[in-house]
């Protein structure tokens, strides 16, 4: 006992999108053909049984961490004392991100920059981004001026990029900004590493270059 249409009907039944006419034809045939409808039920049951799969736990493995560390972190262990410095530029970057994301006010007094977090309990972040205030932009500009005084080219670029991105004020830019921060951090680290290396390489560690380094670090701390 079989129906010549079964294959066609059921194959089309599982298609993704059917023209209304075709699906009407299928429904009509299924309603009047017990062979096809019984077969369909069996197939649907089979499909449901397969869908009952519950994800099995992944056996323990190292997630490629050893490989990753081997290829990325070799230099860090050589200068281990240096690693405590690496987050200072990131601190500055994160502070700037807070300025952008939260209703934050920035005040510049004397030689330090202080950042206060405004009322951001239920801050709708994208809304805040959209009406990023002129005033804050001016404050950013004044920070830029201070940075220029200190002739810190890296950070001027960073801030200018932030301001430029914010004028477009689309949330889509945020991850690009984040990536930029991360790149910036890497560059800062590299600059620091090179400075340190130069210091170590030279037989005479002059007081001047030590002061330069110390100034750079304390400057970053101030911003943080």
């Amino acid at each position: 006992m079989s129906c010549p249409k079964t294959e066609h009907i059921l194959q089309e039944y599982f298609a993704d999108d059917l023209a209304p006419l075709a699906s009407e034809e299928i429904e009509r045939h299924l309603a009047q053909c017990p062979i096809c409808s019984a077969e369909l039920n069996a197939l649907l049951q089979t499909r449901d049984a397969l869908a009952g799969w519950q994800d099995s736990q992944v056996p323990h493995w190292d997630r490629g961490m050893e490989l990753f560390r081997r290829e990325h972190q070799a230099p860090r262990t050589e200068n281990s004392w240096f690693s405590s410095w690496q987050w200072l530029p990131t601190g500055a970057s994160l502070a700037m991100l807070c300025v952008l994301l939260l209703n934050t006010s920035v005040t510049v007094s004397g030689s330090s920059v202080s950042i206060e977090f405004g009322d951001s309990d239920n801050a709708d972040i994208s809304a805040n981004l959209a009406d990023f205030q002129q005033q804050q932009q001016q404050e950013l500009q004044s920070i830029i001026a201070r940075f220029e005084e200190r002739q810190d080219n890296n950070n001027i670029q960073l801030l200018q990029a932030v301001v430029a991105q914010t004028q477009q004020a689309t949330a889509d830019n945020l991850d690009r900004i984040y990536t930029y921060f991360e790149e910036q951090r890497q560059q800062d680290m590299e600059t620091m590493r090179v400075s340190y290396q130069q210091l170590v390489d030279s037989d005479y560690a002059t007081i001047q270059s030590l002061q330069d380094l110390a100034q750079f670090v304390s400057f970053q701390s101030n911003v943080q």
Partner: protein
Amino acid sequence: MSFIDEDEALIAAALNGSAFAWEKLVKRYESKIYNHGLRLMGNSSDAMDLMQEVFLGVYRNLHRFRGDAKFSSWIFRIAHNKAVDLNRRKRILATGGSSDDEGPDLDRYPDEHGDEPESRMQEQQQNGQILSMLTQLPFDQRLIVELKIYQSQTFEEIAEMQDISVNTAKTRFYTALRKLKTVSEETHVLP
């Protein structure tokens, strides 16, 4: 902060050397990839091999990932290609045999025996039954079932990925489903 694509942020950080970001990225996908491998390869040790190859491929090509497609589609495409590869290698190794009669390696599945909670036992029993059904299918049919049922792809996407026509994909899925139906009826009749 749902507007930031977390995968992409993790990728950017991993590319910059953050091991933490890499691990987080792996953790997000390892279960999906492992279970995908389990259904396709039929046993846990091949599924582990496949998963490790997939993540190695992801790691080696991470810098090539451009945000055009979603990361999840990208990684599953890698997984698909690696599964086809691994299956081909296995067939060549299996003394040049042309059949897909390996059968599920139920000794190896579930991986850990012992005092498992009951829900876990049931889950493993259920998955075990599904696996013994799936492994009755030729590999190309198993792939279609995987993509259609477990990854909810359209026949068009499947056709594109496998370089076959949409009609072939539909026919293959229907054939696979019919075969699975027969297999499950047989196993249900037997105690």
